[in-house]
């Protein structure tokens, strides 16, 4: 109970230059972009990107040390997306923060696009890694974090992973490595949305007890509601603040709702790997527009 109260207090005290409301409005815009992109592409993953909007928005518009006009900025923080299939949310955040023109979002998955179905670092400046086959980002993130240590650099490596990909052995090889090499600059964020292609993660191949597993791999573990913007920002700031007080990597288990923001998509694994049809896209955008009005009018 005390813990809960303290957490609440922290959230209340969260002081941010960019207001939570503004971030929520940005998140709403990102969601609308995702629906438009996937409808235009007529293929791709819907649920995962929608569930991760708050986290990506908080990173790109508040947390990351980065410069969209100078993607190779020397000591930038690195965002490594390990589960590449949720890239629409990353592309939307990159366009909206100025890496490339927003109209290019509608080229997703189309021939000659820079926005590949799974991200390719050589196509689009600002992407740190290419990914698709699950778990590969975890080792890459650990490698970059190690290089930062060797070079006495202070930047942080954020590794975004799905829960399903914790069924891959490579994730655990990478986490064992990050713990062993004392990579406190490695911050993992696990999208704990409990869906994968074939069904619910806990039905297909349970990954629980996840927290205990991660702790056993010498990681500090945090948990947060990944769809509450305030909680996301506060947790990320808190993890960063604690980073240098520990030698361990930090992992945040982010509980998210797949398909978040669209009533008929939420928590449905059927939406893992398919795009919206015309009427579904229209209904989704209508819901998001209504949500936007609510955000504008609140407080």
């Amino acid at each position: 109970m005390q813990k809960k109260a303290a957490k609440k207090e922290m959230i209340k005290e969260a002081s941010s230059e960019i207001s939570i409301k503004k971030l929520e409005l940005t998140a709403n815009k990102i969601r609308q972009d995702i629906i438009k992109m996937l409808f235009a592409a007529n293929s791709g993953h819907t649920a995962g990107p929608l569930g991760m909007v708050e986290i990506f928005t908080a990173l790109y518009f508040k947390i990351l040390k980065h410069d969209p006009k100078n993607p190779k900025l020397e000591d930038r923080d690195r965002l490594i997306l390990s589960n590449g299939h949720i890239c629409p949310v990353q592309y939307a955040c990159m366009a909206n923060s100025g890496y490339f023109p927003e109209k290019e979002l509608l080229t997703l998955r189309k021939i000659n696009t820079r926005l590949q179905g799974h991200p390719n670092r050589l196509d689009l400046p600002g992407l740190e890694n290419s990914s698709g086959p699950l778990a590969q980002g975890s080792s890459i993130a650990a490698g970059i974090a190690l290089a930062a240590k060797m070079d006495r650099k202070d930047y942080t490596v954020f590794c975004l992973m799905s829960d399903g990909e914790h069924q891959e052995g490579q994730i655990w090889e990478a986490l064992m490595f990050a713990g062993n090499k004392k990579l406190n600059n490695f911050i993992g964020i696990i999208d704990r949305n409990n869906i994968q292609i074939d069904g619910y993660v806990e039905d297909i191949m349970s990954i629980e007890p996840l927290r205990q597993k991660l702790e056993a791999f010498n990681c500090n573990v945090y948990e947060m509601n990944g769809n509450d913007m305030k909680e996301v920002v506060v947790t990320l700031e808190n993890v960063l603040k604690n980073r240098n007080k520990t030698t361990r990597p930090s992992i945040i288990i982010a509980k998210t709702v797949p398909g978040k923001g669209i009533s008929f998509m939420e928590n449905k694994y059927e939406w893992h790997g398919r795009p919206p049809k015309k009427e579904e896209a229209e209904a989704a955008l209508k819901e998001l527009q209504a949500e936007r009005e609510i955000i504008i009018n609140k407080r």
Partner: protein
Amino acid sequence: MLNKDLHLVDDLSKAEKAATRDGFGKGLLELGEKNKDVVGLCADLKESVRMNWFAEKYPERYIAVGVAEQNLAGVAAGLAFAGKIPFASSFSVFSPGRNWDQLRVSICYSKANVKLCSSHAGLTVGEDGATHQALEDIAITRVLPNLVVIVPSDALETKKATIAIAKYQGPVYMRFSREKTLVYTTEQTPFEIGKALVLKEGNDATVIACGIMVAEVLKAAEVLEKEGISVEVINNHTIKPIDVETIINSVKKTKAVVTAEEHQKTGGLRGAVLELLAEYDVMAVSGYVAVEDKFGESGTSVELLEKYGLTAADIVEEVKKVVKKK
């Protein structure tokens, strides 16, 4: 007559023996001194692959990853993205055997500047048996876009290749071996990525080899010469990008080609050469010395090379057979 420009050892019977893995270890040690960006990673085999010399001298640039080849490849890619020049090592059966997907996406598709350097290739691993004898690695690496594939032929060449691939910007797979084999080159022998070497000129057949088979081919050529068959010997150390000009020109001249490799007969050097000849419409009779679609087994390296038909005598026989078909 050996090609004088290449400064090869004149008398093979007087050539010293050394393992190609030693050449790798020495090359890496030299790189450690020359280039501070070079880092070494190994999956629990640092002495076997001869990375221990580098690790002892530059402990701050040596990274033990434990028995985890997928992570080995991925961490190497991450280090490369942050500006390092990672040399990632294991045995050829494990890397690229166990981390091919990571090699494909994290390294090749991403053009990560990683040097995947693997020892204990081929049957000459010996007593450890079939599980540890990589006979498929050339096939599974040379199909990957953006990847340079190198199979150096003796210890000195391996050292030169190690130094050369550090200067090259991009992904490289290099395979070498455990067993001591003839050092037929000298310090003066040139090495350039992608440039095959015509070790000896001849007119009746072209024998193209890589790795430890090159010295066997030189021995075979001496025997064949005495029997009146003139053989052109090519050391094709770079499987990819393959040296089109050298190979095409030679086979156009001899109209007979034999490949020799310590690898399965499909997908490796033979496959690369025959694809090239077909692409350029070069008509020639052909043969090969390679493993006949089989797994290896335990035994000494000498016994295995004999049993699986990878000796100088086998090359002599194959060349005669091919020349007869002309």
